[in-house]
């Protein structure tokens, strides 16, 4: 675990430094910019899906879905980050008690 953490830390720093050091024309390639813009979208969406709808290797539906539902409503109402996250936890915990 520590090795993966330190490797990822070093890699993320290298990516930042590369940006400040590379010639600017690298950015001018439209495909590069488009792909770099879309990567966070695809990864974050996949992380939401995997976090909420899977348990190990199986797909599941449980209280986490209700938590996600709360998060969607809270985001539509422009609630701050902590309200979204804490509220989703509370909703899931209450659903498990019920």
């Amino acid at each position, binding site marked *: 675990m520590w090795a993966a*953490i330190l490797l990822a*830390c070093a890699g993320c720093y290298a*990516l930042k430094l590369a940006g400040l050091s*590379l010639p600017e024309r690298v950015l001018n390639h439209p495909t590069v910019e488009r792909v770099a813009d879309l990567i966070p979208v695809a990864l974050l969406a*996949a992380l939401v899906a*995997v*976090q909420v709808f899977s348990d190990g290797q199986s797909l599941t539906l449980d209280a986490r879905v209700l938590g996600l539902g709360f998060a969607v409503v809270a985001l539509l109402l422009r609630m701050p980050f902590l309200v979204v996250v804490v509220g989703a936890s509370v909703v899931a915990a209450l659903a498990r008690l019920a």
Partner: protein
Amino acid sequence: MTDRPLDAAERSGIVRDGVAVGIATGAYGIGFGAVSVASGLGIAQTCVLSLLMFTGASQFALVGVIAAGGAPLSGAATALLLGTRNTLYGLRMAPLLRWRGWRRAAAAHILIDESTAMAVNRPTTEGARLGFTTTGLAVFVLWNLATAVGAFAGEAVGDPRTFGLDAAVGAAFLALLWPRLKDDRNILVAVLGAAVALTMVPITAAGVPVLAAGGVAVLVGVLSGRGGPAGPTARPGRSARDAGGEP
């Protein structure tokens, strides 16, 4: 780009904005600390991530993959893929900041969404440097303090399911994704990415589904350039949109 010096009012305005963004970001740090510990990382590992990696979406991704049972290296790979956007920020900031040597090496560490957003529109190098440095340092200090608070709080809670902390992880990712769902293509990529990941869950090792979704982004990014409406000039100046989000 001019080199007109800043007056005192401009200077304090820039500093005040930077500190305000830092305080707003602290809230995310508490969330990260708690989620990271709930995902099975130790307090020390959690704090090292905030100190050394210091780019929020990548940190959330690493602990998220591990929470889903993925191998640490899959988590690291996902974190690196998300970290590529900082490279783009750097390409934009380099001609504005015009730093070399150790200053550039130090600036690279605080090159994140917020410091870029608070510097990219300044008309002078001095203003850009001040906005970048104040915001970057304010976020760094508060993000790390908040991470530690969140990690200790998460540790005190114990089993993440007790207070629904396992549901908090998905909500945190959704909150990070939300501001990026701003046009049809991004929404399409998000839906495809989620669908590909869920399809892969039963048939691959944990961690792989999320990386596979990265392939969707590459595919759509490459294909949509060919004669599509989103031509080369369609999307200028993207980096400044996320102020107040995660670092």
